[in-house]
């Protein structure tokens, strides 16, 4: 049995040596692959297994996607560039950090088996594999891949920010400078200053401001911000334009409601301001009746609209 002992003692250094050796070779190969197409490895079944080998001393961010047009995966196409961007940014860092984290893309059409193995129906998905061995193994010992939370959006900025939690050094990603936007702003500014002489009177005319104010308040009070923040669609499917539910609305409702409000308000203004100035009794009478009826009808329309939104609202006018 002593003999066994010795064998074991011999075996120990051997296997110790053996493990990292092949891991290293894999890593070198991966580094080559990564350098080949700037920073992002194109994976297939074999390289996928290499990258996610249980002995990996490196971490990896793998984008599972389906870019083939036949797959008709629009989000994949939207997301792919940002992932590439981040990968390229990563290839810029110093070698020893860079080679301990990889970016890779796994396309459905190149590695169906992997998709089946992972049981993934939807794409794109970003899996982050922490190092399963070596110094960069996470303290909590969890080596299962974590999934990037797309609630941060498809943009490269948040992606880099989130992935930086898993990389040895933060990803040096900088959003490309948006020339067109700033240029546009500058140009418009210049134009404004140039045109100041001509628009000056308009700006000083109070009714322009009045118009602006009233429009703003109309748009706001008819729930525009709701549609903005919630990204509510313009209309629902199957052509219905009134969103069901009290705390919900479509983009078109904003328009309609704003219009009704505006109409009612202007009718009031007509009655209050304009009508008294008409100096012929008959014409004035006509106006008064007209506007009163308009108010009455629009008001009942508004109410019926509200009753659609809020069932159980007991009151109604005409309809």
């Amino acid at each position, binding site marked *: *049995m002593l003999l*066994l002992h010795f064998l074991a003692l011999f075996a120990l250094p051997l296997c110790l040596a053996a493990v990292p050796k092949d891991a290293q070779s894999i890593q070198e190969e991966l580094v080559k692959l990564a350098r080949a197409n700037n920073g992002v490895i194109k994976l297939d079944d074999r390289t996928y297994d290499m990258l996610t080998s249980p002995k990996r001393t490196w971490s990896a961010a793998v984008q599972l996607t389906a870019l083939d047009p036949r797959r008709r995966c629009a989000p994949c196409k939207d997301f792919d560039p940002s992932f590439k961007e981040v990968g390229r940014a990563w290839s810029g860092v110093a070698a020893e950090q860079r080679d301990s984290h990889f970016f890779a893309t796994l396309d459905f059409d190149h590695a169906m088996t992997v998709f089946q193995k992972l*049981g*993934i*129906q*939807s794409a794109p998905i970003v899996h982050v594999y922490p190092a399963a061995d070596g110094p960069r193994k*996470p303290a909590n010992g969890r080596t299962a891949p*974590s*999934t990037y*939370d797309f*609630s*941060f959006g498809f943009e490269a900025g948040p992606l880099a920010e989130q992935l930086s*939690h898993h990389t040895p050094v933060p990803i040096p990603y900088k959003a490309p400078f948006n020339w067109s936007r700033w240029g546009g702003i500058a140009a418009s500014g210049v134009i404004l200053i140039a045109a100041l002489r001509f628009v000056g009177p308009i700006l000083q005319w*109070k009714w322009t*401001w*009045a118009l602006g*104010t009233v429009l*703003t*308040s109309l748009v*706001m*009070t*008819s*729930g*525009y*911000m*709701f549609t*903005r*923040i*919630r990204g509510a669609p313009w209309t629902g499917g199957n052509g219905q334009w009134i969103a069901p539910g*009290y*705390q*919900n*609305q479509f983009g078109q*409702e904003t328009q309609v*409601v704003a219009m*009704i*409000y*505006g109409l009612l*308000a202007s009718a*009031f*203004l007509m*009655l*209050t*301001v304009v*009508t*008294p100035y008409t*100096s012929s*009794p008959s014409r*004035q*009478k006509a106006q*008064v*009746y007209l506007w*009163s009826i308009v*108010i009455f009808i629009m*008001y009942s329309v*508004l109410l019926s609209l*509200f009753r659609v*939104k809020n069932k159980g609202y*007991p*009151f109604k006018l005409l309809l």
Partner: protein
Amino acid sequence: MTATTAYQVPANLSPTTVANTSSLLRIVALALISGAAIASRLFAVINFESIIHEFDPWFNYRATKVLASEGFYAFWNWFDPTAWYPLGRVVGGTIYPGLMATSGVIYSALRAVHLPVDIRNICVLLAPGFSALTAWATYMFTKEMKDESAGLLAAAFIGIVPGYISRSVAGSYDNEAIAIFLLMFTFFAWIKAMKTGSAFFGTIAALFYFYMVAAWGGYAFITNMIPLHALALILMGRYSSRLYVGYSSWYAVGTLASMQVPFVGFQPVRTSEHMAALGVFGLLQIIAFAELVRSHVSSKQFQTLLFASVIGLGLLGTAAIVGLTYKGWIAPWTGRFYSLWDTGYAKKYIPIIASVSEHQPTAWPSFFMDLQFLIFLFPAGVILCFKQLRDEHVFVIIYAIVASYFAGVMVRLMLTLTPVVCVTAAIAFSTLLDTYLNPEEPEAIDEAPKPEASTSAVAPDTSSAPTKKQKKAAPPPAGSTLAELVTKAPGTSKRKTGVFGLDTRLLVVANAIGMLVFFVWHCTWVTSNAYSSPSVVLASSNPDGSQHIIDDFREAYYWLRQNTAEDAVVMSWWDYGYQIAGMADRPTLVDNNTWNNTHIATVGKAMSSSEEVAYPILRKHDVDYVLVIFGGLIGYSGDDINKFLWMVRIAQGVWPDEIQEPNYFTRTGEYRVDDQAPQTMKDSLMYKMSYYRFAELFGGNQPTDRVRGQQVPKTGPTLDYLDEAFTSENWIVRIYQVKKEDPLGRDLKTANAFEQGKKRKRTKPSPRRKAIA
């Protein structure tokens, strides 16, 4: 021919009589309006009982009790060891004491005159009482804008408009209850100061501003509105020494006073929210100096130079402020304010703020629900303000824009929109009535004799005597005085305009009155149905239509109060912290004052991770009981499973590698609680506590969750580390007791297995004794 009147106005009235009668009527009207305002807020008390509502009021109520029983200084230094256990909460320095102080003063005043009123009733009835004052303040404000009649209308509107009632029914004892009154009165005082240029009213404004600062975090609205108004006036070239005096006195006194509130401290000079006020103050000084010099010096070039230097100094000041902000001397916008501008900000960076339901954007129905026909009178009123653009109208206009934007972004800020809507609507409406109640009829187009113009224009005084003699058929001047009283419509004095005939008048007026009546109906209905439920007690209606009270919350809280140790720590999601402290009087881990994100995230982590992971957290925080809200049985949708994702998100913010939101969704990205629910979801403490023994209710049938409308598994989850301690009648509140460690030092899972007599597989000895051969 001569001027005619559409209807006869009583002839033989002396101006004084008219004046007195009208003022008397005004007083009576205001009294009635106050009565209506108070009465319509009592639905909550009548339908349910005299009870404190919702969540925050419970803390305010508790604090007020401390104040009333132990005096002001004890309250000032109150350290609450039962909140945020074990961190505790320095209450004195982290609240706006205005509300408690107010009811404390009322309490002691009543005691002083030997009226021993229960402090609770004061707290319950404070909001209605102040709503009456709000009506009065609005009256004063609107009077500055137009006249008394508009003021009365505005008072009536704000007295019963749901947008304000929603936060001031009897029992909703929250800061907003008194804040709106302070808001309106501060604005009134400011307008007054700005119009008359009196330092006195400036100081009044400052004092009420101080009261506001002590009462509500929303004071920043005033802090920015008034400077905005001043700035707008300056840019419109309407700088005047009145503005200078009014603003300076307000800012100097107000700022110094506001810094006396501990919770505010040095913010007025250190944070961005207050920089606008400071900047405008500086600008005003520069301009005032410039004006002074200009009035003395006359050389042309010097004045241009002066003008340039003023501009330069102004820019320099702004640059300085910006620079200081970047240096960090001035704190940037706090998250809550910033989320108003960048609307996506909160959800991404401060989930706690985003998770609050009243921070959601507003859809149009709630605008209409809260303001009904005022909402479309509002633009009309704004236009009328533009028509005669006096300084105070500029204020209303700015207020209108800003408030409508804010109200669109956050539901709760509907509250700040309501007053301006009432004011503008009142202006529009009263202008309409003025025009159509004015008995004066314009005469035919072609000939317009001067005298009539003069009579109608002239104010009722002795000077109108001579004109009286000239005409016989003309209406007696007393009548014209009354007419004058009724008609304040602008433009009547100039070219003669008006309405012909009686039928038009009748039509329009009837239409208007109809609207008012409808408005009253609407408000009454909304108030009684929507805004009067104290969310502590729920009401449902039986099949036969009768009302059925669901009182699970108090049932559970009283169970805690009577069956648990004085110092038993209760863990729940933060929504229920104040209620547990208030009703059950037990220490809580987190509550509605969400000042410590990490602590909340800890609770979120405990709730969203498995028993084994959660148990150490619970023990470390000495948690004895865990309380969850579960609506699945009777379909109460505001339960914890529906809030669960927020817990996960908040926990993820602190432990991104332990809690991940996607793990709580199915593969297809759905949020489910039935068989397809992901394992992480099923293992989570929240899920287990919610559905523990839920299936047993259905006696073998497929159990169904009424809220999610999903069929939960027949075999419910099992609990090893917690014991079910209490479940309320309708299962809304479920309380679990945290087990102590096992006496034999086993982990509780195996201990449980042993208790249930399960055979455990024979444990192998530790490898130390491995065979050598």
